[in-house]
């Protein structure tokens, strides 16, 4: 949609491998950080889909997880804390051919960004939102987050968290997301597959990733033990079943909880364009005479 001529594209490698999606910059995360797994799954998903680097934008907020764009050779935007979903919505509406990934933390998307999440889901903005949930604030060094469990003691909650943890999968389902899944950073191949599906899904795809913070809240042992696949024969089109499971499970099921087809926002608004007579300014100002 933007004006301006499409610049002749430089010849890309015939087949894009993971290497091509890496930027020169080495991730600055702590050794063992779950985000490494998410990053590598993202590289692999892009390679699997053979997406052109200049047609992909990775948008993020602020946090350890939100550093991701710097490690990718695609376009990227590292914005402010909590506003990534509306930023990405603008990108998609203005330039609907782009593939847009929103990557951020549990704090970024569910605390300061909580007000935007249900609206992006309800609008079915066509993007893939990958939330790296470490149940803590990594970058600001270990305060509680909205997904911290009750009783969790942290620097900011020395006597324990008193709020019920937010359930990201339930929150997404209740908000009207059309693709809702969970992955685990320590299972990057499965995660790759989810990201591929999320990108292919024509609407708001939410992927909740358990991505432990090795430095401040190391939950690998817990998740290694508890993580499991969705029940066999899971019907991803059964919203009620998805909601009921999300309501009771301990955030440990991996796979696609739910998927539905609904016109995406960018599709719907382009429809208006098609349906209504086009104007130019002269015609438009006519109405003021």
């Amino acid at each position, binding site marked *: *949609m*933007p004006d301006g001529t499409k610049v002749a594209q430089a010849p890309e490698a015939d087949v894009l491998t993971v290497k091509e999606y890496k930027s020169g910059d080495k991730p600055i995360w702590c050794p063992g950080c779950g985000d490494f797994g998410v990053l590598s799954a993202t590289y692999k998903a892009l390679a699997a889909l053979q997406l052109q680097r200049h*047609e992909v934008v990775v948008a993020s907020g602020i946090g350890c997880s939100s550093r991701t764009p710097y490690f990718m050779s695609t376009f990227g935007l590292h914005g402010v804390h909590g506003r990534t979903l509306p930023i990405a*919505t*603008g990108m998609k509406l*203005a*330039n609907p051919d782009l593939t847009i990934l929103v990557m951020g933390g549990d704090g970024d998307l569910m605390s300061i960004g909580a007000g935007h999440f249900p609206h992006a889901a309800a609008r079915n903005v066509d993007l893939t939102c990958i939330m790296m949930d470490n149940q803590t604030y990594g970058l600001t060094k270990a305060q509680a987050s909205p997904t911290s469990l009750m009783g969790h003691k942290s620097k900011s909650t020395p006597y324990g968290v008193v709020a019920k943890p937010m359930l990201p999968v339930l929150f997404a389902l209740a908000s009207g997301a059309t693709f809702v899944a969970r992955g685990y950073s320590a299972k990057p191949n499965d995660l790759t597959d989810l990201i591929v599906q999320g990108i292919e899904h024509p609407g708001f795809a939410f992927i909740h990733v358990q991505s432990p913070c090795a430095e401040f809240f190391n939950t690998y042992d817990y998740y290694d033990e508890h993580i499991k696949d969705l029940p066999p024969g899971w019907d991803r089109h059964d919203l009620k079943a998805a909601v009921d499971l999300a309501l009771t499970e301990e955030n440990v099921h991996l796979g696609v909880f739910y998927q539905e087809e609904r016109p995406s926002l960018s599709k719907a608004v382009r429809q208006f364009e098609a349906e209504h*007579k*086009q*104007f130019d300014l002269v015609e438009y100002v006519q109405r003021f005479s």
Partner: protein
Amino acid sequence: MARDDFIIRIGGDTAIGGVISTGDNFTTAAARIGFRTFTFRTYPSEIKGGQAWFQVRISSKPVYSLGDGCDILIAFDQEAYELHRASLNEGGVLIYDSGLVEPDPDGNIVRYGVPFQKIAREELEFVRGTNVLILGVMAGLFGLPPASLEEMVKSRYKRRAELMEKNIQALHHGYEYTKKIQKEDRFWLGTADHKARLVMTGNDAITAGALHAGCRYFAGYPITPASDILETMASQLPRFGGVCLQAEDEMAAIASVIGASYAGAKAMTATSGPGFSLMTELLGLASMAEIPIVIVDAQRSGPSTGMPTKLEQGDLFQALYGGHGDFPRIVLAPASVQNCFRVSVLAFRLAEKYQIPVILLSDQSLSHRTETIERVDTDVYPTTERLRPNGTNPEDYLRYQITDSGVSPMAIPGLDIHTYVATGLEHDERGHPRLSPQTHEEMTAKRFHKLEVARLDIDNEELCPRYGAEDADLGIIGWGATQGSIREAVDRALADGLKVAAMHPRVLNPLPESRLREFINSVDRVLVPEVNYQGQFAHHLAASLGITPLRFNKIGGLPFTPGEIHSKIQEVLVHA
């Protein structure tokens, strides 16, 4: 001698209704046959009920302001009469519903009592026709050909034949009624030039300017008095191939505008004070990441929720200085409805050229008042495209390259293969985070340097006009919607033999410094009238130019009248 430049004010409770529409219809009819009009409207804060009023100045010559007081007052009810009686100028006309209003005796005015509601009820058996009846009376009394009003009624009810019929009847009834009235006043519309002009509000003109400039993405959240920009964009942008989004709040609105601009669209949001305050953090991101955006702030009376339906020029500080850290932004203020179109186009020009957030400060009076304006010749206002990395090898691409102008090429995802990461962290030329003292110094200087270059674009007569005496003792510097009143006040003072001049910059940051200095140096004293308490522009001028201007402030939700400024000029020059 008949006067064809006069001011009509209409007041009444919104529970009765029709105050605003009666005024609007009269205005449109007059404008269609070539009269110049200038309106003002103010709403009560209640959802329903409470006093609204509408004012229109009509003339066969150009009009620049609302004028002083009113010449003709149409009081729908007793409260309206009491609220506005003091504003009726000597020799003026009071028209009132003689069934509802009991005016005091007053020898200085002409009074016409008509039992509007009673006539509508009993003679027309059509109570909802009261407003059109009044329109007919106004036309008869002041010489507006009823044909022009009839045309309007027809087009309005073109799909409801029965209503159309009844309304036309009411119109003529009113018109005929005036033959029974002994006309004692001297107000009479002669003939006008029959030239086709546009009647637009400031919001309309801003929106039209944006559409012309190539704005193809708009996001906003409803707020008085900016909501109609959102509403017009919602209905019109799809017709121009663009997209409009009602966002969940103002942060989401500006965030999505930043995203849309990053992705290549010319993008805008519009809001008023409370929403503008909420945008503070993201304004800084746009400046730091050098993403062009346009923000319209239709100022209303603050602080906090303040007086949402009233005007004030109170957000200048926030526009100039709001936000943490040092970052540049451009601030514009259109001076009239006609000027809104041009300044709106300018906003996009500067935003795209300098990759910087541009704030366009309008205000409630400008947003909602209409003016007859000349048809815009769009060719005069060329559109501007941002600098792209055309031809550069993607490996060598520096998104934040330090250049002579401070402007660096900006790649567009999907169109350019020059991938990069836009960021709010301090960064090197490639856009990689870098927290060294030297980088921060260089990059801060780069970003601010763009203002210095932009200053050359705007430090000119067109965007900073001067008006009045060559050799003035007093120089008035105004901004925004006060221009018309200042201009008329200067004219009156010149007629008094006083040496006064005025300058009215459209760009408030960066300031057109050389024009302003020249002006300041050419006068003995500087007066800065503005509709706020702190003298925000005076403060900015004082700090930026090292002057100590006289301040002249008015608050309370009403615009300056020419008379108020004229008196101030006299006070400074004559009585001082």
